[in-house]
């Protein structure tokens, strides 16, 4: 099944400068998204998921971050080499991001309408007359709000974010992200700060919209359950590297990497039976990370080779890849 590759992150290394040296957060991230695909990025706090996405959009904090190595190919062009207009193009028409906390993603002193119209305005090509442009903007804005099932769109346009509930704010953020036919949407833990029933609504909404517009979506989450229900393909991330990737159903049926196994075991199950003991140890110190596999200090099946160098992806067939020396040589 040939799919057109939309986003291809190759061997990305990102460092942060701090007191004492550099935090080598991302250590060779490889990540692809195809057109129309829903890709999940699962990992715990501090593993580098948000850093990766911020690098894609080039919104890392300027003074303290450093992209040491790597390329991010978006539709064949390297985002990291882009400047000025080209980068602006990518940000306004190509990729959009939905942030985790809708309350801080929306500017509290502007109405929803003003913010929505701004987003649309910057992604329009220079239109003919000013009046036509304003009319287009208005039309697109109302349409966007309707698509996210917001009742009474005209009134919502005039409200301030603080007057809306958490779920409605998240819908506004989603509407800002999917307008103007963008090709890729990055959703950073949507619904995490919301109640379970509202989160369910938001995720289903996202699912429907993505299908309707044939948008690709990167869904970042720390919840394996959400990833399982909402994605076609999953990447599992640990300490700045992708440790395993597979089709979603394949990953849950046949998890291979010890970290993925540990994670799955730690998730409380609705069937009861207790929870596993968790994964011993803690995240590596990014100032002085291990030379080899970053998970090996905590890995119950670590071998001497694991400390030599970071393991590459070993192909297990069927798009299932594991970065673990236990599976060296492909299909076991």
């Amino acid at each position, binding site marked *: 099944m040939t799919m057109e590759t939309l986003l291809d992150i190759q061997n990305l290394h990102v460092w942060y400068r701090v007191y004492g040296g550099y935090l080598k957060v991302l250590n060779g991230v490889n990540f692809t998204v195809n057109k129309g695909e829903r890709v999940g990025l699962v990992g*715990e*706090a501090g593993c580098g998921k948000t850093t990766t996405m911020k690098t894609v959009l080039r919104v890392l904090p300027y003074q303290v971050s450093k992209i040491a190595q790597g390329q991010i190919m978006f539709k064949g062009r390297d985002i990291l080499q882009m400047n000025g207009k080209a980068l602006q193009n990518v940000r306004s028409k190509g990729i959009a991001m939905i942030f985790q906390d809708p309350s801080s993603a929306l500017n509290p002193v502007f109405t929803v309408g003003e913010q929505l119209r701004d987003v649309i305005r910057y992604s329009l090509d220079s239109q003919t007359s000013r009046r036509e442009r304003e009319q287009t903007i208005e039309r697109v804005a109302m349409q966007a709000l309707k698509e996210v099932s917001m009742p009474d769109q005209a009134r919502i346009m005039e409200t301030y974010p603080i007057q809306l*509930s958490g*779920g*409605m704010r998240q819908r506004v953020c989603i509407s800002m992200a999917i307008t103007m036919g963008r090709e890729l949407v990055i959703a950073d833990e949507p619904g995490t700060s919301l*109640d*379970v*029933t*509202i*989160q*369910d*609504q938001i995720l289903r909404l996202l699912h429907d919209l993505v299908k309707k517009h044939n948008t690709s979506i990167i869904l970042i989450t*720390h*919840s*394996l*359950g*959400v990833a*399982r*229900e909402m994605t076609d393909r999953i990447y599992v991330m640990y300490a700045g590297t992708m440790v395993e990737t597979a089709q979603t159903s394949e990953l*849950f049926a046949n998890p291979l990497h010890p970290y993925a196994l*540990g*994670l*799955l*075991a*730690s*998730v*409380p*199950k*609705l*069937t*009861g*039976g*207790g*929870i*596993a*003991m*968790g*994964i011993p140890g*803690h995240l590596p110190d990014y100032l002085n990370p291990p030379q080899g596999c970053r998970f090996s200090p905590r890995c119950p099946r670590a071998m001497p080779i694991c400390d030599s160098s970071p393991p590459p992806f070993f192909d297990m067939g069927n798009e299932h890849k594991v970065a673990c020396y236990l599976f060296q040589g492909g299909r076991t």
Partner: protein
Amino acid sequence: MNDIVQIENLKKYFAVGKNSEGPIFLRAVDGVSLNIQEGETFGVVGESGSGKSTIAYTIMGMYKPTSGKMLFKGQNIAMDVSKRPQHLKKELQIVFQDPGSSLNPKMTVRQLLKLPMRLHHLVPPDEIEEKIVQLLEKVELPPNYMYKSTPSIGGGEKQMVAIARALAAGPSFMVLDEPTSALDVSVQAKIINKLLELQQELGLTYLFITHDLSLMRNMASRVAIMYLGRICELATAKEFFEEPLHPYTRMLLSSIPTVSAEEDLMKPKKVVSTGEIPSPVNIPPGCSFHLRCPERNSQCQKDDPGMVEVKPGHWVRCHQFSAQPSTGEQPIPLANIS
């Protein structure tokens, strides 16, 4: 089995303003009755605005109840903490959701753990240091953590310090208010297992609050689900998850994301949730859930159903299970439900 905590018809209203008809109240807890048995883990589940945290805080004494009875080991605790006798203050302890704000960032771990010990004169001063080391060992933290101040340690470890602090006073009852909601899954597993271990070892009773139903399944012996200040359903964990009766329970259970096929089978049929969660200032008349309930009928808008014991130990607040027809008669009064 004794009841360590007995609550009857507890109400906690907050005055949030006035309108033309008088003061407006936020009815956080609106008539809750429950008993907690010694040594069990009693779980309370609910979304925001349900009142689950308010109940916990009222038990602890952070709020004075608006009305209702509250007993701890037979003693009346329906009052603010400043009015409670000193010996009760060490018996009830709480672990908050966010370890960052529940531990003073300017204090070292040593000072944090020393405070309860000093206040309750539990340990002679020259043995305090040893006791602190023992406590840290109990929560699997190295002794040199004593001199660290909390901003320099990770979230999971901070929560362990919070647990150690709660244990330092030698309590018999602990309120755990979403203790792992802010933590990663692997860290959560470690803490939950440690809490269960400590419960066995020290004979503690837990009031465990969370919105994560899968977690509740593995923690609680009995579960109550709350909506807008009232309990909707109360049952043993097994019955609650295997035979949920209240429509809200089924809605919640069907919305949670699960990681395996077996769990998918366990979930009730998908109940699509619609609409927003109303605010506890504006509680709808009749049954508070009727606006979102897919199974509502005309009675639900008018009368609030009472708690009915459908099966022994399994209580539901829903007109579908009320034993009598809708004539406005009194529902079966709440009997001793322990």
